[in-house]
Protein backbone atom coordinates (compact mmCIF):
# COMPACT_ATOMS: atom_id res chain seq x y z
CA UNK A 1 0.00 0.00 0.00
CA UNK A 2 1.32 3.41 -0.94
CA UNK A 3 2.04 5.95 1.71
CA UNK A 4 -0.66 8.56 1.92
CA UNK A 5 1.72 11.36 0.89
CA UNK A 6 2.58 9.65 -2.40
CA UNK A 7 -1.00 9.43 -3.50
CA UNK A 8 -1.92 11.88 -6.19
CA UNK A 9 -3.59 14.81 -4.55
CA UNK A 10 -7.04 15.64 -5.69
CA UNK A 11 -7.39 18.95 -7.42
CA UNK A 12 -9.34 21.13 -5.07
CA UNK A 13 -12.11 23.32 -6.29
CA UNK A 14 -10.51 26.78 -6.63
CA UNK A 15 -13.78 28.63 -6.85
CA UNK A 16 -15.08 29.91 -3.59
CA UNK A 17 -17.89 32.24 -2.72
CA UNK A 18 -18.00 34.39 0.35
CA UNK A 19 -21.27 34.30 2.20
CA UNK A 20 -21.72 37.99 2.92
CA UNK A 21 -25.48 38.15 3.04
CA UNK A 22 -25.56 38.41 6.83
CA UNK A 23 -22.97 41.19 6.75
CA UNK A 24 -25.10 43.05 4.21
CA UNK A 25 -28.08 42.69 6.53
CA UNK A 26 -26.13 44.20 9.40
CA UNK A 27 -24.91 47.10 7.24
CA UNK A 28 -28.46 47.84 6.12
CA UNK A 29 -29.66 47.89 9.72
CA UNK A 30 -26.80 50.17 10.82
CA UNK A 31 -27.38 52.49 7.88
CA UNK A 32 -31.11 52.77 8.53
CA UNK A 33 -30.47 53.33 12.24
CA UNK A 34 -27.93 56.11 11.58
CA UNK A 35 -30.09 57.85 9.00
CA UNK A 36 -33.13 57.71 11.27
CA UNK A 37 -31.27 59.01 14.32
CA UNK A 38 -29.94 61.97 12.31
CA UNK A 39 -33.33 62.95 10.98
CA UNK A 40 -35.27 62.72 14.23
CA UNK A 41 -33.00 64.29 16.84
CA UNK A 42 -33.41 67.95 16.25
CA UNK A 43 -31.88 70.09 13.61
CA UNK A 44 -28.63 68.56 12.36
CA UNK A 45 -26.20 71.40 12.05
CA UNK A 46 -22.57 71.85 11.20
CA UNK A 47 -21.03 75.10 12.46
CA UNK A 48 -18.81 77.04 10.07
CA UNK A 49 -16.20 77.47 12.81
CA UNK A 50 -14.99 74.85 15.28
CA UNK A 51 -17.06 75.24 18.41
CA UNK A 52 -18.75 73.06 21.02
CA UNK A 53 -22.07 74.38 22.28
CA UNK A 54 -23.17 73.55 25.83
CA UNK A 55 -25.34 70.49 26.41
CA UNK A 56 -28.89 71.16 27.55
CA UNK A 57 -32.43 69.98 27.10
CA UNK A 58 -33.65 72.46 24.54
CA UNK A 59 -36.82 72.15 22.57
CA UNK A 60 -36.64 70.88 19.02
CA UNK A 61 -37.32 73.56 16.45
CA UNK A 62 -37.10 72.50 12.83
CA UNK A 63 -37.44 76.02 11.51
CA UNK A 64 -34.17 77.50 10.44
CA UNK A 65 -32.99 81.03 10.97
CA UNK A 66 -30.07 83.39 10.70
CA UNK A 67 -27.24 82.06 12.83
CA UNK A 68 -24.53 83.92 14.67
CA UNK A 69 -21.67 81.68 15.76
CA UNK A 70 -19.34 82.61 18.60
CA UNK A 71 -16.01 80.81 18.69
CA UNK A 72 -12.69 81.64 20.35
CA UNK A 73 -11.34 83.35 17.24
CA UNK A 74 -14.27 84.84 15.38
CA UNK A 75 -17.91 85.77 15.44
CA UNK A 76 -19.57 84.57 12.26
CA UNK A 77 -22.88 85.66 10.86
CA UNK A 78 -24.46 83.32 8.31
CA UNK A 79 -21.11 81.52 7.98
CA UNK A 80 -19.07 84.67 7.31
CA UNK A 81 -16.67 86.20 9.79
CA UNK A 82 -17.92 89.64 10.77
CA UNK A 83 -16.07 90.41 14.00
CA UNK A 84 -12.62 89.22 14.89
CA UNK A 85 -12.34 88.22 18.52
CA UNK A 86 -9.36 87.23 20.58
CA UNK A 87 -9.96 84.47 23.10
CA UNK A 88 -13.74 85.05 22.82
CA UNK A 89 -13.44 88.79 23.52
CA UNK A 90 -14.27 91.62 21.14
CA UNK A 91 -11.64 94.29 20.60
CA UNK A 92 -12.17 97.20 22.98
CA UNK A 93 -12.37 99.68 20.11
CA UNK A 94 -15.21 97.66 18.59
CA UNK A 95 -17.51 98.07 21.60
CA UNK A 96 -19.98 100.90 21.83
CA UNK A 97 -21.33 102.57 24.97
CA UNK A 98 -24.23 100.08 25.22
CA UNK A 99 -21.87 97.10 25.34
CA UNK A 100 -22.67 96.05 21.77
CA UNK A 101 -20.17 95.25 19.02
CA UNK A 102 -20.17 97.87 16.26
CA UNK A 103 -18.93 95.51 13.55
CA UNK A 104 -21.55 92.92 14.45
CA UNK A 105 -24.26 95.58 14.52
CA UNK A 106 -23.28 96.70 11.01
CA UNK A 107 -23.43 93.13 9.72
CA UNK A 108 -26.77 92.49 11.45
CA UNK A 109 -28.22 95.71 10.01
CA UNK A 110 -27.09 94.67 6.53
CA UNK A 111 -28.71 91.25 6.84
CA UNK A 112 -31.87 92.48 8.58
CA UNK A 113 -34.02 93.09 5.42
CA UNK A 114 -33.48 89.55 4.15
CA UNK A 115 -34.20 87.83 7.47
CA UNK A 116 -37.47 85.96 7.72
CA UNK A 117 -39.59 87.36 10.53
CA UNK A 118 -41.68 85.14 12.72
CA UNK A 119 -44.56 86.13 15.01
CA UNK A 120 -42.12 87.60 17.55
CA UNK A 121 -40.10 89.44 14.94
CA UNK A 122 -36.78 88.87 13.21
CA UNK A 123 -35.29 85.60 14.31
CA UNK A 124 -31.66 85.04 15.26
CA UNK A 125 -30.12 81.81 16.53
CA UNK A 126 -27.03 82.23 18.71
CA UNK A 127 -24.65 79.27 18.54
CA UNK A 128 -21.88 79.86 21.04
CA UNK A 129 -19.02 77.78 22.35
CA UNK A 130 -19.55 76.51 25.89
CA UNK A 131 -16.36 78.23 27.02
CA UNK A 132 -17.42 81.69 25.86
CA UNK A 133 -17.65 84.21 28.70
CA UNK A 134 -21.04 85.75 29.42
CA UNK A 135 -19.54 89.14 28.55
CA UNK A 136 -19.33 88.10 24.88
CA UNK A 137 -22.80 86.56 24.88
CA UNK A 138 -24.19 89.78 26.35
CA UNK A 139 -22.42 91.84 23.67
CA UNK A 140 -23.89 89.68 20.89
CA UNK A 141 -27.40 89.72 22.39
CA UNK A 142 -27.18 93.45 22.95
CA UNK A 143 -26.06 94.00 19.33
CA UNK A 144 -28.93 91.87 18.04
CA UNK A 145 -31.54 93.53 20.24
CA UNK A 146 -30.44 97.00 19.18
CA UNK A 147 -30.75 96.03 15.49
CA UNK A 148 -34.35 94.88 15.89
CA UNK A 149 -33.90 91.14 16.28
CA UNK A 150 -36.67 90.36 18.74
CA UNK A 151 -36.83 86.58 18.46
CA UNK A 152 -33.44 85.48 19.78
CA UNK A 153 -32.86 81.81 20.44
CA UNK A 154 -29.91 80.07 22.03
CA UNK A 155 -28.74 76.88 20.37
CA UNK A 156 -27.52 74.07 22.58
CA UNK A 157 -26.25 70.61 21.82
CA UNK A 158 -29.35 68.54 22.33
CA UNK A 159 -28.91 66.35 25.41
CA UNK A 160 -30.36 62.83 25.30
Amino acid at each position, binding site marked *: MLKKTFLPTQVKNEQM*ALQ*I*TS*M*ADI*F*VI*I*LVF*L*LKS*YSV*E*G*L*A*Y*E*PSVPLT*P*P*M*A*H*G*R*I*DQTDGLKVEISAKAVNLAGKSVSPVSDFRFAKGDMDSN*GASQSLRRALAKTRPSVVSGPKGAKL*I*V*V*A*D*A*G*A*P*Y*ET*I*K*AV*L*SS*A*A*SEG*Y*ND*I*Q*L*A*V*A*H*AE
Partner: protein
Amino acid sequence: MKRKGFLKHSEYEQDFELNIASVIDCFVVLIAFILISSSFFSIGIIDAEVAGASEVAASDAGSLVVELKADHSILVRSSESPKNERILPKQAAKGIAWDFEGMAAALKAMKEKSPELKSAVVMADNAVTYRDVMASMEAAKKEVSSVNLGGF
Protein backbone atom coordinates in the same frame (compact mmCIF):
# COMPACT_ATOMS: atom_id res chain seq x y z
CA MET B 1 -29.95 17.42 -31.12
CA LYS B 2 -32.97 18.65 -29.29
CA ARG B 3 -34.23 22.12 -29.83
CA LYS B 4 -33.77 24.31 -26.79
CA GLY B 5 -37.50 24.74 -26.56
CA PHE B 6 -37.96 21.05 -26.08
CA LEU B 7 -35.43 20.73 -23.25
CA LYS B 8 -36.76 19.60 -19.95
CA HIS B 9 -36.95 22.24 -17.27
CA SER B 10 -34.28 20.55 -15.15
CA GLU B 11 -31.80 20.46 -18.03
CA TYR B 12 -31.38 24.21 -18.37
CA GLU B 13 -31.84 25.19 -14.73
CA GLN B 14 -28.79 27.12 -13.56
CA ASP B 15 -27.38 28.06 -10.20
CA PHE B 16 -26.95 31.76 -9.92
CA GLU B 17 -25.63 34.10 -7.25
CA LEU B 18 -26.19 37.76 -6.86
CA ASN B 19 -22.99 39.73 -6.85
CA ILE B 20 -23.64 42.13 -4.01
CA ALA B 21 -20.01 43.08 -3.41
CA SER B 22 -20.55 46.48 -5.04
CA VAL B 23 -23.62 47.10 -2.88
CA ILE B 24 -21.55 46.29 0.21
CA ASP B 25 -18.91 48.75 -0.99
CA CYS B 26 -21.52 51.48 -1.25
CA PHE B 27 -22.83 50.75 2.23
CA VAL B 28 -19.35 50.79 3.72
CA VAL B 29 -18.64 54.19 2.13
CA LEU B 30 -21.99 55.58 3.29
CA ILE B 31 -21.56 54.38 6.87
CA ALA B 32 -18.00 55.70 7.02
CA PHE B 33 -19.24 59.06 5.71
CA ILE B 34 -22.00 59.30 8.29
CA LEU B 35 -19.69 58.34 11.15
CA ILE B 36 -16.95 60.76 10.03
CA SER B 37 -19.46 63.60 9.70
CA SER B 38 -20.00 63.44 13.46
CA SER B 39 -19.09 67.14 13.64
CA PHE B 40 -22.76 67.59 12.85
CA PHE B 41 -24.69 67.91 16.05
CA SER B 42 -28.36 68.12 16.62
CA ILE B 43 -29.29 71.40 18.18
CA GLY B 44 -31.96 72.17 20.67
CA ILE B 45 -33.36 75.64 21.10
CA ILE B 46 -33.73 77.70 24.25
CA ASP B 47 -35.62 80.95 23.96
CA ALA B 48 -33.81 83.98 25.30
CA GLU B 49 -36.21 86.75 26.05
CA VAL B 50 -34.10 89.71 25.13
CA ALA B 51 -35.00 93.25 25.93
CA GLY B 52 -33.25 96.55 26.43
CA ALA B 53 -31.80 97.37 29.84
CA SER B 54 -34.82 99.37 30.99
CA GLU B 55 -37.24 96.68 29.79
CA VAL B 56 -35.25 94.01 31.63
CA ALA B 57 -35.58 95.98 34.82
CA ALA B 58 -39.31 96.20 34.23
CA SER B 59 -39.59 92.50 33.44
CA ASP B 60 -37.82 91.69 36.71
CA ALA B 61 -40.99 92.71 38.53
CA GLY B 62 -42.83 89.59 39.66
CA SER B 63 -40.00 87.22 38.97
CA LEU B 64 -37.14 85.45 40.65
CA VAL B 65 -33.65 86.71 39.98
CA VAL B 66 -30.60 84.45 39.87
CA GLU B 67 -27.15 86.02 39.74
CA LEU B 68 -24.08 83.92 39.02
CA LYS B 69 -20.97 85.45 40.54
CA ALA B 70 -17.42 84.98 39.33
CA ASP B 71 -16.47 83.33 42.64
CA HIS B 72 -18.96 80.48 41.91
CA SER B 73 -21.47 81.75 44.46
CA ILE B 74 -25.09 82.27 43.42
CA LEU B 75 -27.38 85.02 44.62
CA VAL B 76 -31.08 84.23 44.53
CA ARG B 77 -33.73 86.82 45.30
CA SER B 78 -37.29 87.55 44.45
CA SER B 79 -38.29 90.85 42.95
CA GLU B 80 -40.71 91.24 45.86
CA SER B 81 -37.98 91.26 48.47
CA PRO B 82 -34.53 92.86 48.31
CA LYS B 83 -33.12 90.16 50.58
CA ASN B 84 -30.63 87.94 48.77
CA GLU B 85 -30.05 84.33 49.48
CA ARG B 86 -26.44 83.46 48.86
CA ILE B 87 -25.67 79.94 47.68
CA LEU B 88 -22.04 79.22 48.35
CA PRO B 89 -20.01 77.08 45.97
CA LYS B 90 -19.48 73.48 46.89
CA GLN B 91 -16.25 71.55 46.94
CA ALA B 92 -15.84 69.11 44.10
CA ALA B 93 -13.07 66.78 43.02
CA LYS B 94 -11.79 69.36 40.52
CA GLY B 95 -12.01 72.29 42.93
CA ILE B 96 -14.98 74.50 43.64
CA ALA B 97 -18.19 73.99 41.72
CA TRP B 98 -21.56 75.69 41.38
CA ASP B 99 -24.22 74.45 43.77
CA PHE B 100 -27.11 74.35 41.32
CA GLU B 101 -29.04 71.93 43.55
CA GLY B 102 -28.89 74.52 46.33
CA MET B 103 -30.01 77.18 43.87
CA ALA B 104 -32.97 75.07 42.76
CA ALA B 105 -33.90 74.45 46.41
CA ALA B 106 -33.77 78.20 47.13
CA LEU B 107 -35.94 78.92 44.08
CA LYS B 108 -38.43 76.27 45.20
CA ALA B 109 -38.61 77.73 48.70
CA MET B 110 -39.16 81.25 47.36
CA LYS B 111 -41.79 80.04 44.93
CA GLU B 112 -43.65 78.26 47.72
CA LYS B 113 -43.54 81.48 49.72
CA SER B 114 -44.78 83.60 46.81
CA PRO B 115 -46.67 81.41 44.31
CA GLU B 116 -47.29 84.38 42.02
CA LEU B 117 -43.61 84.26 40.99
CA LYS B 118 -43.67 82.23 37.80
CA SER B 119 -40.57 83.29 35.92
CA ALA B 120 -36.89 83.70 36.62
CA VAL B 121 -34.20 85.91 35.15
CA VAL B 122 -30.64 84.59 35.08
CA MET B 123 -27.81 87.12 35.18
CA ALA B 124 -24.10 86.45 35.37
CA ASP B 125 -20.79 88.19 35.87
CA ASN B 126 -18.71 88.80 32.77
CA ALA B 127 -16.24 86.02 33.51
CA VAL B 128 -18.87 83.30 33.98
CA THR B 129 -18.86 80.87 31.07
CA TYR B 130 -21.80 80.24 28.79
CA ARG B 131 -21.73 76.57 29.87
CA ASP B 132 -22.41 77.55 33.49
CA VAL B 133 -25.14 80.01 32.48
CA MET B 134 -26.88 77.28 30.50
CA ALA B 135 -26.47 74.79 33.36
CA SER B 136 -28.06 77.28 35.78
CA MET B 137 -30.94 77.91 33.35
CA GLU B 138 -31.47 74.18 33.05
CA ALA B 139 -31.47 73.74 36.84
CA ALA B 140 -33.82 76.71 37.30
CA LYS B 141 -36.23 75.31 34.70
CA LYS B 142 -36.94 72.38 37.01
CA GLU B 143 -38.57 74.78 39.46
CA VAL B 144 -39.71 77.70 37.30
CA SER B 145 -41.38 77.25 33.93
CA SER B 146 -40.07 80.40 32.29
CA VAL B 147 -36.37 81.22 32.60
CA ASN B 148 -34.90 84.17 30.71
CA LEU B 149 -31.50 85.70 30.31
CA GLY B 150 -30.89 89.16 31.69
CA GLY B 151 -28.24 91.59 32.72
CA PHE B 152 -27.70 93.44 29.45
